[in-house]
């Protein structure tokens, strides 16, 4: 390529290259947006699948067992999503990832929300950054792309909303009632951990308000359980038994 362009032809040739480059960029961007939408949709389905599994066996089996069944069902679907990311990995290899990050980000966050939900039910803890990154790596442990810190945190922040739903439904599950207290403690911890990070992530600041609202709802559930059982001077299990007998009679 000549160093200084002196003729119309040389300018047009150069700009032809620019056109190809820009078209290529926009096409890739478009493909990634579509893939990200697919990831979002699948992730939402995983979340519903988990809630569904937890509700299905309402009061019929052990709480822990129910959770694990939900987790194992979710894992299959999560694998599908991971394959979608694997498929995208070539287009966002090397320095290209950061060019397209904001197009990939919505799907990625929704995936992290679903993954961390399953993880919580399995381990009762928060999935770590490294574990999320590992789930987005090939068999040899090579990441498909570097996990952005903000996507990780924003995905986790949405988890608290799902946990709120989980806590509210658990009130009508036998034994599952103690679950509400566990979730309450966990979400309280999340809120505190996120609080320290809000100065660095504008969007997290906004989501923190939603988390606070979710926490208040969970606290209300825990309160309602306490108030109710405080009126009678009987151990909680016995109360549960009495209610169950009346309903099933």
């Amino acid at each position, binding site marked *: 390529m000549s160093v200084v362009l002196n003729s119309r032809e040389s300018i047009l040739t150069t700009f032809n290259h620019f056109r190809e480059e820009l078209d290529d960029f926009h096409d890739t961007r478009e493909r990634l947006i579509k893939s990200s939408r697919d990831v979002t949709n699948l992730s939402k389905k995983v979340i*519903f699948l988990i809630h569904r599994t937890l509700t299905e066996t*309402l009061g019929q089996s052990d709480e822990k067992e129910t959770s694990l069944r939900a987790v194992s069902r979710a894992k299959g679907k999560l694998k599908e999503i991971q394959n979608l990311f694997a498929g995208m990995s070539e287009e966002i290899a090397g320095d290209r990832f950061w060019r397209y990050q904001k197009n990939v980000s919505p799907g990625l966050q929704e995936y992290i929300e679903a993954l961390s939900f399953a993880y919580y039910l399995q381990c009762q803890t928060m999935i770590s950054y490294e574990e999320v990154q590992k789930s987005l790596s090939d068999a040899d442990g090579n990441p498909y792309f570097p996990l952005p810190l903000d996507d990780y945190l924003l995905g986790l922040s949405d988890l608290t909303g799902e946990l709120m739903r989980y806590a509210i439904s658990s009130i009508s599950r036998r034994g599952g009632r103690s679950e509400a207290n566990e979730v309450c403690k966990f979400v309280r911890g999340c809120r505190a951990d996120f609080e320290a990070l809000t100065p660095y992530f504008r969007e997290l600041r906004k989501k923190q308000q939603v988390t606070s609202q979710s926490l208040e709802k969970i606290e209300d559930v825990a309160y309602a359980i306490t108030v109710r059982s405080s009126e009678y001077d009987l151990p909680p299990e016995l109360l549960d038994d009495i209610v169950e007998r009346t309903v099933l009679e």
Partner: protein
Amino acid sequence: MDAQNLDHINQLLDKDVELREKIKDQVTEFDKKTRTLTGLLNRIHSTPSSQVPELIATVTPVLESCKESTAALAALTPPNQFWRWKDMWSVSLRNAVFAAALVEFLRSGGLLSLPRAAETLGIKDEWRDRFALSAEDYLHALISMVNELSRLAVNSVTMGDFEQPLKISTFVKDLFAGFAMLNLKNDTLRRRYDSLKYDIKKIEEVVYDVSLRKLAPSQSNKM
């Protein structure tokens, strides 16, 4: 634009404007009926169970009269344009289905199925591309019914009826399990579905109170 094209556009436009007016008039009529329905059904909260059949008897003719509205709307809607106009009447339709489903529960304790709900309101299968009961509208109506049943559970106890909350509890839990099957988007249905959990919680509390006071007579031979 040339005159012919402008004429053509104006014709299309006039037809739409006129149609919208006509549908609006019918919806106003339909709406009056469904407001009467909800007004009448609001009385269940102060009607002892023994008098519920009489209350239902006053509701039935109004519900029947909704058939005229659905027929009129089906007649107005052009072929294949169901989805174009349905937003205009879906609030009224949901209210009518709500009333029908609540009446069914009060009568039989069971859930009115979608086809049966359509039938009750006189919606014919052959109108499918002009007027139908969509799954979404049906589901909204069921949620409204649960909202009402949680109030009814509370008020039944006040009126000294301790059986009703137990019936409601079983029914609503089954229905909730059904809702849990669905993959919802972040839309109104999702938001209302989330709110169902609070209704269930309230009903559970009533059942709990009733159970613990051992006030409920034996149910074994009734359910």
